[in-house]
């Protein structure tokens, strides 16, 4: 089996793990945003609560969700290990270095990743944990839907009335935008996909994605805080 460990511990093997888990998370964000945009419906949270119930009870989705938790943790742990190894590769630092040869985001992927991680801890502690492991959320029933569902909508509404929670979301999403600004196209480069035929398309899509997706997420807390 040693060819597998040789591969996974090689610099390129480690990068491949970062790339593939990153791409998985990029796909996840689209699905997550599509679901969350139901919070903008003016239906007292019916569509969102039923959706949230389905997401936490459907067995197929549970399997994907455990995969998601595993990939997030793998991406974080591997990313931190790589970043420390990379820093350690130059023990004596430069007195002067040129900041123009690369971007802020590309140099600070670990810092941005950690900001996203702290945001995630707040985010999941507030919604996911309360939904799955406590009875803090009231049960509600809707006409035309058999099961009683947890009222996550009311919790979301309450959270987004707090200015400091909204601020944490905005900071987390700015960090996410910068992380994606570098990460999207970087994932394809690591996979070996770089060609003048399609690299400009990947770079363009990456820039659009890294702006549109975080703005899509940011609309929700801002709408609840300022409009609702």
């Amino acid at each position: 089996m040693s060819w597998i460990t040789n591969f996974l511990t090689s610099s390129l093997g480690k990068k491949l793990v970062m790339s593939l888990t990153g791409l998985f998370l990029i796909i996840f964000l689209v699905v997550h945003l599509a679901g969350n945009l139901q919070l903008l419906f003016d239906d007292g949270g019916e569509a969102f609560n039923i959706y949230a119930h389905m997401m936490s009870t459907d067995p197929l989705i549970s399997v994907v969700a455990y995969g998601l938790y595993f990939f997030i943790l793998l991406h974080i742990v591997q990313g931190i290990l790589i970043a420390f190894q990379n820093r350690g590769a130059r023990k004596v630092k430069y007195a002067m270095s040129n900041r123009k040869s690369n971007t802020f985001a590309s140099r600070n992927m670990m810092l941005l990743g950690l900001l996203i991680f702290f945001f995630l801890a707040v985010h999941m502690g507030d919604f996911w944990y309360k939904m799955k492991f406590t009875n803090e959320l009231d049960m509600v029933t809707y006409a035309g839907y058999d099961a009683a569902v947890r009222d996550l909508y009311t919790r979301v509404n309450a959270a987004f009335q707090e200015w400091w929670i909204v601020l944490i979301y905005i900071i987390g999403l700015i960090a996410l935008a910068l992380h994606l600004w570098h990460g999207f196209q970087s994932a394809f480069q690591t996979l070996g996909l770089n060609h003048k035929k399609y690299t400009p398309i990947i770079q363009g899509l990456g820039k659009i994605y890294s702006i549109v997706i975080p703005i899509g997420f940011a609309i929700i807390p801002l709408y609840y805080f300022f409009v609702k």
Partner: protein
Amino acid sequence: MKLKLKIWRQKNQNSRGGFSNYTVEASPEMSFLEMLDVLNQQLIENKEEPVAFEHDCREGICGTCSMVINGQPHGPMGLTTTCQLHMRHYKDGDTIVIEPFRANSFPVIKDLVVDRASFDRIIEAGGFISVNTGQAPDGNTIPIEQDEAKKSFDAAACIGCGACVAACPNSSAMLFTAAKVAHLGHLPQGQVEQSKRVKRMIAQMDKEGFGNCSNTYACEAECPKGISVANIAKMNRAYFSAVVSTDEK
């Protein structure tokens, strides 16, 4: 023109180095290395130790000159080695900070001279073709499509100076290794050993303690020969395919 220089001085690999300040009178038509020659002459006349720096062809083709000038390997001009950098790009009274290339895998030998033997060991691991491919006329008997020949030649332009490692925030040697892999891999003579070559060169690169590539592309920006990071993607593809196709572990 009068210049203030802040130069890294280090006696040997084990001693602690530090910056020393000098002033030098240069003229705009001098190359950067000629300006340092003037400084060294001055130091010798004052019975001081001259600054050790590497140089050989002074034509921009050998890859021997190194040094980081005001935070940039080979200085501020694109596609230019230190020896081809001229003092006309500086103004009277400028302060110039000169440091050696920095990476654990490039230990300082003295002052601005670093040991780049780690690159030699990457080449020894697989950057060659094992059979005798003959002389230039023999090469010319094998027809190679122009676009492939050009890609090979673009990669072969790498002079192995190490500016990619020096510029990389992770001290990664991926651009150098990728250039060597692409140079041989685009030619039919190099194809036979390509999978083993990629695996062995990357294994050696990792063993030498270079950092992992995080696609910041600082290497491409600072490379005096304009080697493209597309070569890195090509090497990644070749490596992933080599992992599942070679018998080697």
